[in-house]
């Protein structure tokens, strides 16, 4: 009991806001109601638009990060080429440079290349921010595979790309899940980059859309609807985290956060 009671009390404190938000989102003047969720579906451009934007943004970020980090991790783990160390250091340097300070030039740069106000542009920026962690993680995953496994395939005449697809990819699956999970959580939840890089309300992802809902209405915020918005944003992350927790913790254990 002496062990459990303080921990249980703390767990209640940490879980309480989430539980309260879920409860508040289904409360009306007359008790239980789904009215908050019904009214949030109609706000702005329609909730479906914002959910679609968020899904597209996260989908492109996850796929982009996985492809770039898998190919790059394979290159760093198994090949020698001029400039290899320099490129790896440059990618890790992304961690050293504060995120917020390069968004202003990115805003101008994306405009130059015709990606202003585009979810694709924002997702490319997210891929860049994920790169240090993702490359480090995938390089280590490939390095952990014994070389003998692919050497027999190479001797049999398979090209390096076929070896990657058929022999190595299944072996680095846990690393892929970790990288994908981090990329999803970061891109689904990020607020600042889309706020700066997107100007058209119809292309806003959920966080920017819901925040702009509260700031546009000034004093007349419907807090129940707001908590429904919080739940729409939070529940996918909570579920994914609970299911894939093992992979998330692996990301911490890998030391990749150290950069």
């Amino acid at each position, binding site marked *: 009991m002496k062990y459990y009671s303080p921990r249980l009390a703390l767990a209640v404190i940490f879980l309480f806001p989430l539980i309260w938000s879920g409860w508040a989102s289904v409360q009306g003047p007359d008790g239980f109601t789904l009215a908050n969720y019904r009214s949030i579906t109609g706000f702005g451009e329609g909730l479906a638009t914002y959910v679609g934007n968020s899904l597209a943004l996260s989908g492109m970020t996850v796929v982009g990060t996985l492809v770039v980090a898998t190919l*790059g991790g394979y290159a760093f783990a198994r090949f020698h080429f001029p400039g290899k160390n320099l490129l790896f250091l440059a990618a890790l340097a992304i961690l050293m440079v504060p995120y917020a300070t390069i968004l202003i030039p990115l805003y101008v740069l994306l405009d130059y290349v015709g990606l202003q106000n585009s979810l694709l542009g924002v997702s490319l920026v997210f891929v860049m921010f994920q790169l240090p962690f993702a490359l480090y993680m995938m390089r280590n995953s490939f390095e952990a595979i014994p070389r003998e496994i692919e050497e027999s395939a190479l001797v049999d005449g398979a090209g390096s790309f076929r070896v990657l697809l058929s022999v190595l990819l299944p072996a680095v699956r846990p690393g892929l899940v970790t990288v994908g999970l981090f990329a999803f959580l970061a891109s689904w939840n990020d607020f600042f980059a889309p706020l700066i890089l997107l100007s058209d309300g119809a292309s806003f992802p959920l966080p920017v859309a819901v925040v702009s809902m509260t700031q546009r209405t000034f004093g007349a915020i419907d807090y129940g609807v707001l908590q429904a918005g919080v739940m729409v944003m939070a529940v996918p992350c909570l579920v994914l985290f609970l299911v894939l927790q093992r992979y998330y913790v692996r990301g911490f254990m890998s030391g990749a956060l150290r950069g």
Partner: protein
Amino acid sequence: MNDVVTSPTRLRRGRALAGWAYAAPAAVIVAVLFLAPLVLVVIMSLHKWPLLGPARPNFPANYTKIPDDPLFLDSVLFTLKYTVIITILLSAVALGLALLVQDRRRGVGFFRTAFFLPGAVGFAAAALLFYGLLNNDFGPFGFLGVNWIGSPNMALTSTILLVLWRFAGFDMLILLTGLQAIPIEVYEAARADGANRWQIFTRITLPLLRPTLALMLILSITGSLLAFDQFFIFTNGGPDNSTVSMVMVVYRNAFFRFDLGGAAALSVVLLVVLVALNAVQMRILRGATTR
């Protein structure tokens, strides 16, 4: 015969080419989306760069006008104050939580998950959650009669509660990896020598945890100096501009004053200070690791 002599070289060259091909997408992203903006932000800071229309060189005006912006100077002081307070509190709470759940016991997984779970929620969503939670008409704490974001001090206090709730579990996970890297034998030897719990904590746990603590501090300090979401969403800089962070001023200069050059100059200053700070901290961290 000829084949046997040339093939290793050709093979090596082929492998190098393949390596470049695999690394090419990463190289393009690093070059276009990271190195190019780094150069561009410096160029922009040397120009009068409006949101629309052509840019004109105006060095050093964007830099010399920085001290004339009282809101920015206030934001520097406020951000530093916030960083000191939140870093101390966050380290203390995270270390406490990590120590509470470091042993493998029945149910410990539940506690770890419970403490971390707020970290899975986006920061923007967490800020909106607290916006309702700490609203006296709507939230459950109205009976306390506290005006959570009515005064500058309370606005800061409420923001700190939000950040502690959202990030303590995240930092706990980082510290937990350090705690679990300490071999059990070290504790057993100390206990055999008659050390008590406090002695074990101060003489063994803390020194061996130093590299991990340093990493947590770097992440916390950098993150806090760049604070934006919590003050933009939760307090909206108020009351009376008392919670305006440095990055909020950068944002305001760029998108409300349409002065991208000025915003770029502030970015460059922030960038230089933070990279220098990171380098110093990294050196301390590395020193701690090799010891």
